[in-house]
């Protein structure tokens, strides 16, 4: 019997130099007050302690297509980290 794999959300990221990376989207969330949207994804990188690296970008949809921007503001980054801590706790 053939088994269908778990549905993974994959995304292709086109970098500034034109190269394409395939990443797995873990989740996306939005702050209710600022309406700023963020996406969290992974490239399946694990270190020697089996910790996994995830990446966080701000999603800008002002031009119609989604563009991923970095988080420059430290306060904003701290808020995002708080959310990630919250989500990493068991439900």
């Amino acid at each position, binding site marked *: 019997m053939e088994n269908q794999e778990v549905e993974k959300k994959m995304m292709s990221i086109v970098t500034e130099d034109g190269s394409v990376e395939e990443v797995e989207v873990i*989740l996306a969330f939005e702050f209710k007050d600022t309406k700023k949207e963020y996406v969290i994804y992974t490239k399946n990188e694990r270190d020697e302690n089996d910790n996994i690296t995830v990446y966080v970008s701000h999603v800008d949809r002002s031009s119609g297509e989604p563009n991923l921007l970095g988080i420059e503001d430290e306060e904003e*980054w701290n808020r995002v980290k708080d959310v990630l801590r919250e989500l990493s706790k068991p439900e």
Partner: protein
Amino acid sequence: MNNFELKDFDYKVSKRHAAERKIKFKNVSFLNFTNRFKNFLQKRLEKKLEKATNDAMNSKFNKFEMETTIDGKTIADRIMKSRTEKVAKIEEKLIILGRGKIEKRNYINTRAIKLKEEMMKYVRKTGRDIYSIPEEIKENMLNGTEKKEINDTKRVIDEETIKLQDNLKNIETNVNEEEITAVINQSLNNISLENDINVAETKQSVDKVFDEKEMEDSNYSLSDESAISPIKNIKPMEFPAFSPVSVIEKKLSEVDLNSDVFGNSPKIDSIPVTSEENNVEIESEEIEREMPIIAEERKINYYEKTKDDIKKYDSLMDELKDTKINDIETAERIRNELEKTENEIIENKNNLSEEEALMLEKEFEENKQEEIKEETSENISFDYSEATARDIDKAISVTKSPKDLKAMMERVRLLQEEEKRTQERAEQAEKQKKAKEQEFEETARKLQAYGDDLEQKCTINAEKEKQTLEEAKEWDQAINSMLQAMNSSSNIKDNNIKKK
């Protein structure tokens, strides 16, 4: 902390314009992460499923849709199928989210057809030219469907269990069936014990509070290649693949032939052994001592035989699977083409106004009838658009079935109505044309009159101007002559003075 909400990110391609931030998680925390999102998606899908189910249940059809068939299926049938397919697609996603996989290939089509048949069974006339599922039946169906789903899942699990048991029973060995079961159960127990230990360890790590120190973050720079570690496959949610054959093979491969599990001979209290010397009953311990080699051979035979049987079973399953896959792929292809056609029909229908749609449907029906007529009436082609009454009578006399006759009469009636409408439109256009012509003529007349008037005025003005010029000339001449006269008199005076 409720200042954020999860979102379903559905973009396949994104452009990155600035370096992203990165952060590390422990495996357990990461699993919590993904589970949270999984639950969120599940809830969203459940809502979508409810809506899709309601849409299908609340379908309404008219008489035309219920009675008109295209390739053996009514339009209502096709519409309902497209709706139940949406339901089945969402159900499949939910199953994948919940179980991690879907057991049946072609689940969507099978489920959609089943649901459609179930619903169409209850569609009946509920109003003037409205066919739908009555309210009381809808409620029963909704409740019944839920329970049935649960029962279906239970049934699937039971079936798998039965299959496993059957497979175990069907394996032919030289050893007693009870012994096989005992052996396998013992090895199962050994393995399940190991799993229990693993679960206990995992539970401990889950209970551990997520420590800030364990979370590292750094600014990721594209130029820092050393920060990128090799990509490894991650399976945060792994569900054990369930297959009776694989279970048996796994269990058997884990059995150590040298272990006591197989090492012990069956407990036989005594075996009557006949020997030439005497008829003596030999005790079990003596049997063990005397027959270690046979026990070893028995172990090997059992294992090898089982392995062969498993291979045969596997190859048979593969053959069946291939045949089934081919059939299913063909059916899927045909189904997709039919759906495309159906969707086009439905889309086109939705885009048209009611009248246009009705006309088109009727035209389609007529075309269909004409095709049927051509098949049955020996290639008679007849152009109704320019037919006279006599021609129609002639054609009618050639047809063979009452249905054709009815269709033709209907067509004639429609054509006549169309003709009337066209005539009316033509008359109206004629009237408008006449009115426009009259208006034009009147305008032309007015313009002409205005032109004449202007011309007249110009002539009068010209004449006046001419007259004035002539008068001016005359004045001019008169003045000149006076001046001359004055000059000549002054000259004479001067001469007279000089003379004096």
